[in-house]
């Protein structure tokens, strides 16, 4: 008898469906490729997952309160170059890194202020910002990649040493999930998205909530960009971009965050990124070539979402029978 509430409790965990789908994907690729279950391969998957989940952690908050940041992919690209710019001008590396993060935060603040003060929809605001930043990157970098400074203890912590990029991702995901589900700010973010008029009537400073979430997202995007570039060994103007932003948002949505706002989960976004990483890496491992790759990737994502949604429906049906 006592197992039933436990089962229901588990079923009601929002992230259950995406977890099951991710496990299914893992099983599939284990079956089809001998090299899937190796530490090296896990590391490759982790390298896909880290940038997407870090950016997604912020995008989840924004999506929940009814906004989106399309420029995150270019803050990702810009941050390492800002860091090198400061470094080349004589700042110690740790300060240059900090400076780059601060610049990223400022971008988010600008996004948020344009959105709230000028009332321009975030889609347009951040789209404009995206192009602006893309141009800025090309100008600063002269469109050439820059090598990562070698033998830097600071950079070792930020992507240089093995697994650091992924560890940062885990840390970010944990912290943001706690912020979302265990702080007043998280509740206010949900209220701002779920009922902005009502939230404002209750005295919640919805504009401030949005601006803070924009700032969080772009800060995380800058951090992610520095981490990935450092790991790869090269800060490249081709890193990041719309594709990275898109996969981050996709991770969030696949993981259970509603595109139209009101509810979401950072842990789910991590699982969404994990699913995408497994699929990307798995098909590469299986030898799928470029043209077919996109077909297969698209089919896999669709299949995963169908499964995800079906599981959510089952969960809701079982859950609601127990309610009022």
């Amino acid at each position, binding site marked *: 008898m006592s197992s039933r509430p436990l089962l229901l409790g588990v079923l009601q965990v929002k992230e259950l469906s995406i977890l099951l789908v991710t496990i299914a994907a893992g099983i599939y690729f284990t079956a089809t490729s001998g090299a899937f279950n190796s530490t090296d391969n896990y*590391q490759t998957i982790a390298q896909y997952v880290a940038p997407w989940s870090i950016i997604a952690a912020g995008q989840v908050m924004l999506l929940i309160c009814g906004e989106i940041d399309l420029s995150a992919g270019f803050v990702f690209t810009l941050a390492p170059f800002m860091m090198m710019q400061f470094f080349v001008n004589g700042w110690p590396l740790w300060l240059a890194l900090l400076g780059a993060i601060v610049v990223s935060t400022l971008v988010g603040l600008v996004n948020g202020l344009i959105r709230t003060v000028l009332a321009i929809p975030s889609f347009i605001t951040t789209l404009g910002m995206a192009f602006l930043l893309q141009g800025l990157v090309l100008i600063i970098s002269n469109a050439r990649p820059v090598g*990562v400074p070698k033998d830097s203890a600071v950079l070792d912590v930020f992507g240089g040493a093995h697994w650091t990029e992924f560890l940062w991702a885990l840390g970010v995901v944990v912290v943001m999930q706690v912020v979302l589900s265990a702080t007043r700010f998280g509740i206010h973010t949900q209220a701002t998205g779920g009922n902005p008029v009502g939230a404002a009537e209750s005295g919640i400073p919805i504009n401030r909530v949005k601006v803070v979430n924009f700032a969080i997202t772009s800060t995380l995007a800058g951090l992610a960009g520095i981490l990935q570039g450092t790991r790869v*060994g090269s800060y490249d103007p*081709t890193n990041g971009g719309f594709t990275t932003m898109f996969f981050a948002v996709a991770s969030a949505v696949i993981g259970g965050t509603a595109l139209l706002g009101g509810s979401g989960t950072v842990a789910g976004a991590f699982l969404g990124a994990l699913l995408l990483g497994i699929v990307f890496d798995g098909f*590469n491992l299986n*030898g*799928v070539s*470029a043209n077919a790759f996109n077909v*297969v990737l698209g089919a896999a994502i669709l299949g995963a979402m169908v499964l995800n949604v079906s599981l959510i429906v089952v969960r809701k049906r079982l859950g609601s029978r127990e309610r009022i």
Partner: protein
Amino acid sequence: MTAETGATSRRTALKFLGMGGTTAAASALLAACTSVQDAQNGGKSGPFPGTPGWRFVFVNHVTTNSFFVPTRSGLADAAALLGIPEPQWTGSENGNVAQMASAMETAINGKADGIAIALTDDNAFIDLTKRALGQGIPVIAYNAGAAGNFPLTYVGQDLYLSGFRMGQRIAQKVTTGEILVGIAQPGGNNVQPRLDGITDALKQAAPGVQVQSVNTGAEQAGELNAMTAAYTGNTAVKGIYAVDAGSTAACAKVITDHGLSGKIGAGGFDLLDDTVAGVKSGALDFTIDQSPYLQGFLSVLYLYLYRLSGTLIAPPATDTGLTFVTKENVGPYATAHSRFEGGDNKDVIAMPGAIPLPPASVLSR
């Protein structure tokens, strides 16, 4: 059973059929895609002993760009010739270096038998190359080379030299004024050296000429817009050139659209359809063939021989070509639609009656 419930159960049945059918179709599609590589499990090739089905991986920076269609034909032909499965073609669609690095890493983890990579970044592939070599996986660079890296060899065009020769050629026609030069990925290892070559050659041969570079972006569709905008903003230019395939095709279109054929200098690289048509019509003075087919074909051949001989046959550095294609010799490029240039025609192409004279040979001391 009333008509209504009959309809419902029919609908339900159709729904299940639909779901089942889609699932079946999806799995078939999946199987088809992933089994392309299992097609051949190795075999015998002419005089060579039988080999296991060596699995080579090509890592590319613009996997879906039409420039590389002949490269993929080349690698497929070589594989078929040698009795090994067709190599995997992966990497990034839009020049993303991190993605290419991940693809290379996956190839290493998956214990590929050989890797061919376009080295579009100086730093990102060094450690990976060392790791691959350390695990006994040969690595060859093709199409783009980089300093300070460790591929066994480079198979492709000498980028700086090709730009330099192009600059010399431009100087024959344009001696003063401004020229536009479109470049798809400024700073990219596979195109920037060409631009540098042009600039340096012009400094020597025609110092009165100013080079205005135009960033056209890596996507073919956008390149035309960028070149058009650049020209519209500067109609006094003496020439419109480009250093990559897509931008060159865009040049040809801009010149044709604005009726500038013969009035200003134009030329570029590679053999996209618009480019070849442009050379034929006179819109472009020349284009440069870097033989993408050979970049694929020879890379596979070199990896195969290297493995077969246990490193005795070391892959040689290979300049796949710097052929100026002009109105005189453009014929077969335009009409044959040969597989060697990305078309469907697999037939033997007829030889011309007389062969045009190549440039005079130059010995390197």
